[in-house]
Each structure stands twice: as C-alpha cells, then as structure tokens.
C-alpha cells in the first residue's frame, strides 16, 4: 500500500524475474484465425500471453504461434489445461518447460468439463511440487482467500483467482472474496476468467488487483482488435483510479442518538 498520496510514476509489476509495465495479460485461445490473434494481442500491448500444450496432430501441421508472439516481445506463459489432476499437471508443466524453454507455468486443473472450475486440492498439490522444483507457478483457482494463503506459502509467484467461470463473461462475481484476497496477499493477485467487458477489467483494477487476464472477451468480440485496445485502456484507467485513491460510497446515515455526548459533559473532569 502507498504510504503517501503521490501516484507512483513508475508503476511496474514485478513477478519473479520479470518486470511488466502492462497489467493486461492475454490468452491466445478461441480466435478465428492466427492473423487476427496476433493483431489483437498487439493492440492489447500485453506483455504476457498464455498458451496451451497439446499432442501434435501427425496428420497436418499446426500453426506455429510462438514466432509472432516472441517477435512482439511478449513473454510466454504456458498453461496446464487438459490436466485433470496434480500428476497430469506436473507432467504438463515439465513438458511446457521443454517446449518453451521457460520455467513459468500457469497451473490450470479443471476436472469438471462443464464449468471448467479449478480443482483446489490438486492445484495446491501440484503447486507445492512445482514450486520446489523451481518453477514460477501462477495457479488459477477459485476466489478462496484461505487457499490463496496456502498457495502463497507454497511458493507461488502470484495467485490467479477467478472473477467468474471461464468463458462466461459474467464479470467480477467474486468481488467480495477478491477484495479479501487482495487485502491479505503478499504476492500479486491476477484476476483471471470471467472478465467479459472492459468495465469488468477496470473494476478488478480499481479493487487493487495487480493485473487481469482476458481471453474469451477479446477473441470472440465482433472486432477483436478494437476490443483488445479497449481492454488496454480500461486496465490503465482502473489502475490509475486505484492509485489515485477512490472516494468510496457513503453507507451510513447519521442516527439521532449521540454516543459521544458524554465527552462534552466530561470536559472539566480530566483524570491526571
């Protein structure tokens, strides 16, 4: 927390060995084609991009998505999606480390194919193991404050609590819990999943999130490139508002019976 009212001129986000000046992280999935994906990511000015790992299809050549991303100076964050338990996630993380030559990993374990909600128990298990192995672990989890404390203690570099189920675009449904997580965390809190509109992203940033991760909302927009740029603006606006110190809402109407009148009567009696 700031200890003065000055707005930090150098608002950098440091996670493990990397420094970010953009707090909008993006995903590469669900775009209709690679060209659009690359243009949209460029418009986002994102410096961290997630991707998945899949078994190669022997019959035809998959696009090489890495080259254009690396060319644009984006850091790569492989995820373990597809893993349904800690063992599979650990295997995926190790594969990802070889494939991308990075020890950064987004831990994503969703055994439930309907809502894609993250498994807290398997995630914590995998995080403990991978952190010990020297990975930079960014776990995707439900907005559970106690779970986030355990993940921090396990050595994760950040936590990524969800705003709403993946792809739902419902926004920040978990606001109350995100606030608690942000208050209690000593590591960056990146709100991931469920962000459907730039206003959702701004809200997460106003709450004090270190960054947000947006994928679906950009990829399936009518104009992904324009939407991506809008998200970039929203994240900057939300962050600036947070740093400037928000006004807060007034909830309390003054009741009529005074609790402190006794002090006025007491003015003369000062115990020394």
């Amino acid at each position, binding site marked *: *927390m*700031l*200890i*003065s*009212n000055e707005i930090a001129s150098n608002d950098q986000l*440091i996670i493990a060995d990397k420094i970010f000046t953009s707090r909008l992280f993006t995903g590469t999935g669900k775009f209709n084609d690679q060209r659009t994906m690359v243009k949209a990511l460029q418009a986002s000015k994102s410096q961290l991009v997630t991707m998945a790992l899949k078994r190669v299809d022997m019959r035809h050549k998959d696009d090489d998505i890495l080259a254009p991303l690396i060319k644009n100076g984006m850091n790569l964050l492989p995820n373990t999606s597809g893993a349904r338990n800690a063992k599979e996630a650990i295997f995926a993380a190790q594969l990802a480390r070889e494939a991308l030559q990075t020890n950064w990993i987004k831990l994503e374990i969703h055994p439930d194919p309907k809502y894609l909600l993250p498994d807290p128990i398997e995630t914590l298990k995998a995080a403990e193991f991978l952190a010990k192995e020297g990975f930079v672990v960014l776990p995707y989890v439900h907005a559970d404050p106690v779970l986030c*404390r355990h993940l*921090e*203690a396990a050595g994760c570099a950040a936590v990524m609590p969800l705003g709403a189920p993946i792809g739902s675009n419902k926004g920040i449904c978990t606001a109350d819990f995100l*606030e608690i997580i942000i*208050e*209690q965390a*000593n*590591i960056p809190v990146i709100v991931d999943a469920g962000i459907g509109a730039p206003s959702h992203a701004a809200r997460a940033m106003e709450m004090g999130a270190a960054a947000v991760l947006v994928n679906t909302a950009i990829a399936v927009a009518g104009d992904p490139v324009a939407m991506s740029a809008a998200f970039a603006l929203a994240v900057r606006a939300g962050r600036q508002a947070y740093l400037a*110190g*928000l*006004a*807060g*809402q*007034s*909830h*309390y109407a*003054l*009741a009529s019976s*005074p*609790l*402190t009148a*006794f*002090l006025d009567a*007491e003015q003369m*009696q*000062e*115990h*020394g």
Partner: protein
Amino acid sequence: MGNEKMTFSEEIKNYQWDDVRLSIYAKNGTDVQRALSKSRLDLEDFKALISPAAAPFLEQMAQKSQQLTLQRFGKTQQFYIPLYLSNMCSNICTYCGFSMHNAIRRTTLDMEQIENECLAIKKMGFDHILLVTGESERKVGVEYFKQALPIIKSHFSHISIEVQPLDQLEYEILIDYGVDSVLVYQETYNPVTYALHHLKGKKADFTYRLNTHDRLGKAGMHKMGLGCLIGLEEWRTDCFYVAAHLNYLQKKYWQSRYTISFPRLRPCAGGLEIKSVMDDKQLVQLVCAYRLFNPEVELSLSTRESEHFRDNILPLGITSLSAGSSTQPGGYAQEAEKALEQFEISDTRSPAEMAQLVKAQGYEVVWKDWDHSLTGK
C-alpha cells in the same frame, strides 16, 4: 513479496517518524470523509481518522465503530482478570512502579500462593486470565512459568501472559505449557524516546522488543497483543505505528488473532511528566479509528480508566474488559498489604458489578471463549 527473514524492525524503516507525524497532521476533512465512507481502510485512512481533522466527525466514527463491532462480535464482552505473579524487575523504566530503582517490596508468588490466588479468582467467575510479571529473566523466567502454568491451566481455559519478551523457542515451549496469548507493548515506537525511558536492563534493547511479535508468529502463538504506552511520545504518531505493526503482522502471521490495548500514562511512584496528553475525547477517537481500520481486532480496556469513562466507551468498539483487578502480586486470596501497584486503578468495581453494568447496556458477558475448546487443550 513474502520474505521469510523479514521482521518488523526492517518493515518499520518504511515509516520515518517525522514524515508520519507530518502526514497525520496534514490530513483534512475530505480525507476523513473518504475514510468514513470506505469499507476497507488502509493506513492512510487510519492516519486521517486519528488526525485532529477527525475530531468533528467523532459521533459518526462512534456510530460506525459500534455497528462494525456488533456485526463482528455480536452483543458480547469478554471478561478477563490480571494476576500479577511477581513484581521483580531488572529494568529501569522511568514510568513504571516496578522499576528496578524504586524501593518497593519485591515479591514473587510461590506455587502454593498461585493456587490460592487461582481459587479466589475462580470464585469471581473468570475463565480468562492474564498473567503479569515484571521483567526478570533469571528469577521469573521460563523455568518459573513451566512450574506455574500447569497449576493455572487446571483452573482457566484461556491464559494470556504479559511478561518479558522471549525467544521463539521459549514461546514454543510456553505454547506447549498452555499459553494461548502473549501481550507485548512496545511502549513507544520512537527509538530515541524509547532510549530516554528505558535506561537499564534487557528492555533497553528496542529492536529485540520490536521483533517479539515476529517471534510469536513464527512460534505459532494463537493470539498476540500490541500497543504503545500513550503519552510517552506524540500519541497520534505512536498509535499509527501500532496500526502499521498490526497491518504487517496480520499479513504475515495470518493464522494468529490480534488484540490491541491503549494504556494511557497514569501517575506512578516516579511522578513522570507526560509528553503528549491524550484526553478522553481523543481516546474515544483512537478506539473508533482502530475499529474502523480493523473490524476484526479485539480491543481491550483495562481498569486504568475511570468508571464513568468505561461505562460510556464500552459500546463504542470495546470487546474485552478486565474487572476487579489487582495490580500487585496476588491480591485476590486475601487483602494483601500493599507492595505497591504497577499503576493506579481507577475503576475498582467488582466483577459482579461490572457484569451487571454490561448486561444493563445490552451485552452478554463472555466468561469463557468457546473457540478454544476445540483445540483439545
């Protein structure tokens, strides 16, 4: 980034005394109003609430403080009683009746006396006890506590101690012997002023004392208390440091509970001139500020304050009270000859009287906090 080796003496370097003091006094009405309208306050908001600019907003602060306290604690007040085990002390502290250079009768309760005191206290209804000693490592140290604690534990379900700061290993031992909570007051967070008042003995080590709560947290102490002795230094600045300390500890030792006390300097044998006088209105402001900043922290009021004041501040944020206190060794089993009290008691009402008052104000007295029965101790 969470750093295992970091302690508060490192963290405190982020807060320079004079910068803090100036920024508190620079707060204005707008800052106060913003703090009042937020649901989650930060340290800057706390500064606004303890600044002079908050004085006109006292009623509003009190309303909100009362509301928050009710929501979190319900209509309850926890009762506890201090039992002074010893007034031996090897420190010289200018403000304290137990100071080594004061010619007072020194006594340490033996095991039989402790048993008698416990029996007398149980008759009054208490189940939460605060054991207090001076700071005399050799004569009243861990070995003494290891003897005394089993006796006391057999009578009380919750034991707090307020003794000399100990090492982490010693705290781990005391946890095994039944200590649930440890209170250590920094007295003042200003190291220069601290040195002026702590002239001799282990207490002169500012940093060791300052890092006590880190050692407690690492030892896994369930509950810890902090605070400053209001009046040694400019009170707003000193109390800010208490809030900053609490803030740091809660983030780091998140499985511990916290309690704050606000002892105001009172006359003692030494007749110390108080540097910064805090009047009653300001104490109310402080209590409300702590509550608004931290709806979950226990706020504890001792018998240092007068009857009239205690009655009126009770519903404004307080959650824990002592009653019927004796601040000399023993004092409950029999009408002991005065060995000299650590501080003068202003509210001398009995526990039964206090319980009646608390009930009359619409609160239930909690003699035993059931949270602890699950730990199996």
